[in-house]
């Protein structure tokens, strides 16, 4: 009989498992090299870069306007927020005034996008944990958001909706009605999600005390966003450095206490509710007027730099633009939140089980193409 090798030889207790890049729950193309002792992880080494497209180099070779469609392709789940941030960064660099109406429209669109991103996270996270049905419920809700954003921007995922000095298309009464209807619909959905998932004993056991990222670890790795807030630090760029018109809205920054997967889940869930509040207020105060200010066709920013930070669905995101006084940036750098959030896996994964690794990876909500850029 031929010699067979299945696991590593018996003398070696530790064997390695290649999780990904084609694995049902590695969210995009992430590969984690796991060293396992039985089901327990000894060492985890995330390997990234499969989706590297060189957005930063592209940014240097394009005029500012041409980079806009790129932005929503980095974090494709919150493309609107990335669009919005880039528009704000360039507006700050050049000094373009944005009409009030456009500011409110952008906030509404961004917050809708944030809810849709969190809903998708909720669905896929439950799918990682083996619950298939919440995934489709979440997508059912998300579909309504995509419809709303589709009706105003014409796209469902990569919007390219914001322009320097406003947005590319005005919203109409139908948009406002749809958004209001969506808010009303969501108000009735939280109880269902609570009963189906949040209170579920299996779910709680799968997430409580799993993958604790405490304050010290978050600080060491630069973890931001809901993952940071889950360990009790209420740091949200929308509150800390209010951009656009976020300082006019009354909303809370939900925080957790321990920083385990359950806290991260809770924080994201409450965040969706807060986003609904913001949208509601923005709709109430939506001013009239123009939606796009007059901007010259050829944009030539002055020499200098801008570092513009904003809160995407995954955390602190920033565009770092260095202008040399020509039509394209000298350097275009994007600080992405998932980078730090994934980096921390190096320390969180060891001594957990394979099943927990999936749960942790799902709970930190990374979008790999965003890291790869």
């Amino acid at each position, binding site marked *: 009989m031929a010699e067979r090798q299945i696991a590593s030889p018996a003398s070696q207790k530790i064997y390695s498992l290649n999780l990904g890049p084609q694995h049902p729950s590695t969210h995009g193309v992430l590969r984690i090299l796991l060293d396992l002792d039985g089901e327990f992880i000894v060492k985890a080494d995330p390997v990234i870069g499969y989706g590297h497209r060189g957005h930063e180099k592209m940014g240097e070779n*394009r005029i500012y*306007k*041409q*980079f*806009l*469609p*790129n932005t929503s*392709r980095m974090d494709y789940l919150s493309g609107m927020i990335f669009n919005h941030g880039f528009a704000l960064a360039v507006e700050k660099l050049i000094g373009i005034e944005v009409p009030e109406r456009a500011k409110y429209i952008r906030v509404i669109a961004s917050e809708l996008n944030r809810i849709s991103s969190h809903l998708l996270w909720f669905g896929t996270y439950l799918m990682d944990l083996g619950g298939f*049905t919440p995934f489709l*419920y979440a997508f*059912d809700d998300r*579909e309504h958001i995509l*419809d709303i954003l*589709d*009706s*105003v*921007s*014409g*796209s469902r995922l*990569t919007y*390219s909706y914001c*322009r320097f000095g406003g947005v*590319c*298309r005005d919203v109409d009464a139908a948009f406002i009605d749809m958004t209001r209807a969506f808010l009303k619909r969501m108000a009735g959905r939280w109880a*269902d999600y609570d*009963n*189906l*998932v949040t*209170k*579920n*004993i*299996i779910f709680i056991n799968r997430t409580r005390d799993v993958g604790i990222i405490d304050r010290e670890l978050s600080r060491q790795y630069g973890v931001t966003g809901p993952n940071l807030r889950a360990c009790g630090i209420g740091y949200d760029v929308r509150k800390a450095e209010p951009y656009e018109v976020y300082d006019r809205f009354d909303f809370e920054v939900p925080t957790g206490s321990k920083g385990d997967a359950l806290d991260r889940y809770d924080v994201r869930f409450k965040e969706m509710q807060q986003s609904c509040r913001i949208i509601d207020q923005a709709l109430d105060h939506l001013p009239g007027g123009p939606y796009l200010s007059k901007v010259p*066709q050829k944009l030539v920013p002055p020499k200098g730099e801008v570092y513009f930070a904003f809160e995407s669905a995954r955390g602190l995101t920033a565009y770092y633009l260095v202008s040399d006084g020509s039509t394209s940036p000298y350097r275009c750098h994007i600080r992405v939140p998932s980078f730090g959030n994934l980096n921390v896996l190096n320390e969180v994964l060891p001594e957990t089980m394979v099943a927990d690794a999936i749960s942790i990876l799902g709970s930190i909500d990374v979008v790999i193409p965003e890291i790869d850029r």
Partner: protein
Amino acid sequence: MSYLKDIYYGGLSLVEGMAVTFRRLFRPLVTVQYPRKKIPLFSAFRGHTELKIFEDTGTHKCIACGQCEKVCPSNVIQVQGKKEQPKGPKVGTHYVIDFSKCSLCGLCIEICPTDTLQFSKEYQLVGVTQSDCVIDLMARLARQVEEKKTQAIAA
């Protein structure tokens, strides 16, 4: 005691979850069986770009200025034109887009000085080769004009 309590409340939470899914069994379905039923498109829908037909001239107003070609981030557009009269304005004769590279950002539409570009409502774009993604907008326009004519005759 807490042992039994845990079992009881744990079990209760499971029953609550099952109630949620059971209720959904009798809700109306949200699926649309696609080729049989279709959802109307929003007016903002972005298909690939196309040339507008203007009522007054019955054709496009492209002047082959090449601004769309220049502003396009991914070199999708190829425009050529010629002067019909020696001193007259240029007229676009050749407008081809490579849709496989297009990211539907709409910069070409916004920059067009004569407003002759718009997003089409085309979404059933199936091809088997890469060259199927290359769309000749002038030919498409000619087809549309032809269709309009036959429709007008039929009416």
